């Protein structure tokens, strides 16, 4: 039995969890700052790091207490090293290093995106080769894993992340932050009415959302010039259909080419209800690949996912040391 204490603070959640053997959550404490940042229409880095500092000790104490364990029971301390906001990351990294040093435990640095993928361990036994569509406010990546802890990014966004496009379109239309849930909900009332161009990009599995965002803006300007009022529900419907159809089509294409045993969705955007519908529909053509649609608690930022990925890294002997620092631009570990 291996017990991991995991710490995550890459963006606006201060989180700590205790995870047993990579797939059992003994505690998963998340202190969210989203209400504070809603005021600003996004995460404010300085405010975020200050709140992380205020919360981190209490969150760690609560995670241990709720799991009913002490530091004696913990085998290693896993933490998010990056990618993320530098000031936010620092807080979690320092907390993890301090705890590891004080209690003489090994440190396991984890890439936040790997955490999102391994969050699926809580609902399914991961089967390799595995394909993961990792989608969030800062990332849009198709990752092929031939084996456990073997990552190969086969597609990525050339400009904006999909979650960022949602946030910006929501802002253009005055729908508030974060954009994902509001657009997902409003699009349910929309219908096919406007036409937006399908994103064009060179790489077979690459994505692009910047042009789509600009197209939304231009469409609004054109309609305004004509004196037409914009139907927001129809517009977000069209935006969402265009973005998600493109993304799911490319994912299925990658599944057909790589033939993985499992396809998992990961990251905050994986909670999008229309994306899940489309993915299910399109994956019906690939019955040999098992589709995992993680529940909401596995999609959003949390520390349990870092505990799960940290367990895999721990098994592979990938330990860090006290000299390691936060890396805001950290890339996925690669064997190439």
């Amino acid at each position: 039995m291996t017990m991991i204490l995991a710490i995550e603070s890459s963006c606006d959640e201060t989180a700590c969890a205790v995870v047993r053997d990579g797939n059992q959550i003994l505690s998963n404490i998340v202190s969210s700052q989203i209400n504070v940042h809603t005021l600003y229409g996004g995460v404010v880095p300085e405010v975020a790091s200050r709140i992380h500092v205020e919360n981190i000790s209490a969150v760690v104490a609560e995670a241990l207490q709720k799991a009913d364990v002490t530091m004696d029971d913990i085998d290693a301390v896993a933490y998010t090293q990056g990618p993320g906001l530098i000031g936010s990351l620092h807080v979690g990294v320092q907390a993890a290093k301090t705890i590891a040093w004080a209690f003489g435990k090994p440190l396991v640095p984890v890439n936040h995106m790997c955490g999102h993928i391994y969050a699926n361990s809580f609902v399914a036994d991961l089967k390799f080769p595995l394909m993961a569509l990792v989608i969030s406010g800062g990332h849009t990546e198709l990752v092929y894993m031939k084996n456990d802890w073997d990552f190969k990014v086969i597609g990525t966004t050339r400009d904006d992340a999909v979650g960022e496009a949602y946030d910006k379109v929501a802002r253009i239309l005055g729908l508030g932050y974060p954009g994902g849930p509001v657009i997902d909900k409003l699009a349910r009332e929309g219908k096919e009415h406007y036409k937006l161009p399908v994103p064009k990009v060179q790489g077979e599995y690459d994505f692009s959302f910047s042009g789509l965002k600009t197209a939304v803006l231009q469409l609004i300007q054109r309609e305004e010039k004509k004196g037409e009022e914009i139907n927001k529900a129809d517009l977000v419907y069209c935006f969402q259909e265009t973005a998600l159809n493109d993304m799911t089509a490319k994912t299925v294409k990658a599944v057909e080419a790589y033939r993985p045993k499992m396809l998992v969705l990961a990251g905050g955007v994986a909670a999008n209800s229309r994306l899940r519908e489309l993915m299910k529909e399109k994956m019906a053509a690939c019955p040999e690949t098992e589709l995992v649609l993680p529940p909401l608690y596995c999609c959003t930022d949390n520390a349990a996912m870092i505990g799960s990925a940290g367990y895999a890294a721990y098994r592979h002997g990938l330990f860090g040391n006290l000299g390691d620092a936060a890396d805001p631009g950290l890339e996925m570990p690669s064997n190439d």
Partner: protein
Amino acid sequence: MKTWKTVTADMAETHALGRNIGEAAAGNTVILLDGDLGAGKTTLTQGIAMGLGVKKNVTSPTFTILKIYHGRLTLNHIDAYRLEGASQDLGFDELLEDDGVTVIEWPDFAGELIPDEYLKISIHLLENDSREFIFEACGKQYEALLEEIA
């Protein structure tokens, strides 16, 4: 202050304009990019990066505020979009003293980070994919840079 105006017809031309800027830029340069969502700030920066010999693809820095790339010179790509309404010290001023090129999107939200001398590029979306770029050079170093670009 020196000014210059140019129009690009499409994304490829915007990218090429950025590349010219990147090739002409020396160390210790600050470029401000002003323009609404969808104006083409990231496309122009992708061109600047190429002109600086950066091999990696430049993606939007909105989420993390700052991304750093290494080429002939270091490119610090800052996006102050999320900083609207918040006055704060991000410690980015250290970067501006580096021997690199710093591109700042949404400079109106970057507050005290903006130095006294800079090259400011205001981008306006025209019809279709056409865009207008208005260059303003503040300071001798930037007037010389603009002369080379124009």
